[in-house]
């Protein structure tokens, strides 16, 4: 479903990686490994289409993602380094707004349920400014609970989370893979995800 061939990334004067390729099918997880600065985030942003590769091609269901444009983005859920939540809004408002911006409105009951799943019950109406770093990350991750788009691209999803939350997120990713979804993620923590097959890609070696 998702194929990348011969990708090359140049940042400023430096070439971060070249000749990177992989193939990912339904129900599979790609785990990106590599030291800091080896280009993991750059590769993820490239897969999303936020940056154009210096060379190489990315294909989704056999067609180049650059050509598919909106059709590809409608099947993509990207969670970046930044949480994309507003400090002035409450977790509930943030979740409802981000779902609506992504073009998939969420019913309020589902949103409350998602916040409960990520352990934010009782905090729904507190401005996000008053939440801890880990709680803010949970607000961002609450999007995944009812997310049914096929391809998840997650940049360091476990960062700032406690042990229980890491397990919960790994569970969400596992359930997504079992539904036949695809996931690409970077992490420095070895986390067990219940997936049919896990591929690993090491950058910068």
């Amino acid at each position, binding site marked *: 479903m998702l194929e990348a061939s011969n990708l090359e990334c140049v940042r400023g004067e430096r070439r971060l990686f070249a000749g990177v390729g992989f193939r990912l099918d339904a129900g599979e997880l790609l785990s990106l490994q590599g030291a800091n600065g080896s280009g993991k985030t750059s590769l993820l942003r490239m897969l999303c289409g*936020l940056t154009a590769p210096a060379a190489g091609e990315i294909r989704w269901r056999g067609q180049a993602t650059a050509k598919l444009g909106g059709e590809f983005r409608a099947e993509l859920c990207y969670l970046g*380094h930044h949480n994309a939540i507003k400090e002035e809004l409450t977790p509930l408002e943030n979740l409802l707004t981000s779902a609506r911006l*992504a073009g998939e409105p969420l019913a309020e009951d589902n949103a409350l349920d998602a916040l409960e799943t990520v352990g934010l019950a009782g905090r729904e109406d507190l401005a996000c400014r008053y939440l801890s770093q880990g709680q803010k990350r949970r607000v961002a991750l609450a999007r995944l609970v009812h997310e049914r788009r096929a391809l998840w691209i997650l940049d360091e999803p476990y960062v700032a989370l406690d042990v229980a939350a890491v397990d919960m997120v790994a569970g969400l990713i596992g359930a997504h893979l079992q539904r036949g979804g695809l996931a690409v993620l970077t992490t420095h923590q070895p986390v067990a995800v219940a997936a049919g097959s896990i591929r690993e890609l090491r950058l910068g070696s």
Partner: protein
Amino acid sequence: MLALLKTVVARDLRLAMRRQADIVSALFFFIIVVSLFPLGVGPEADLLRRLAPGVLWVAALLATMLSLPRLFADDFRDGTLEQLALGPQPLAVAVFGKTLAHWLSSGLPLTLLSPLIGAQFDLPADAVWMLVLALLIGTPALSAIGAIGAALTLGLRGGGVLLSLLVLPLYIPVLIFGAGAVDATAGGLGAQAHLSVLGALSLAGLFFAPWATAAALRVALE
């Protein structure tokens, strides 16, 4: 597409309401800049009446500029802009929504406040109403053009000054026809031609600027 537009406008207005200090400080800036002129040039009613349209419009341009640097900076910093760029709809639609919200929280309050300030300059009643009408028609162009500048300077250090240098020259046509409309009315002439040009500037700005802004945002996100 309409749903996305509505969501963006509603979200930005809600954020603006939770950060009312920004709106209020821009309004006070407008009031203070305008009030400095009578103190500087002296209290001659004739002179003030002649100066009023130009002074009010210049102050309105500067007050609109104040809130421009934050138009995309917050969304850029917290990652919301990435999410908007990755939505299935064209980014320009979201930009159009943000431009509208910016106008509703900067241009519109200025317009509503302007009759009060006009009275301070002893403008005749018909000139005051023309001022309100001209601001109402002209200020959307300021938000639309300003958005291009805000996107081009996104993520630059000292971008605020560069933004002014970039955007203020582009505001000149709006200034000329906006102030011209009030001048013409005060002089007993019709202002319809001025208003038509202002309307054309706003419509063209609102239609074309979001595409240019979206292109600039994509470059900033790379």
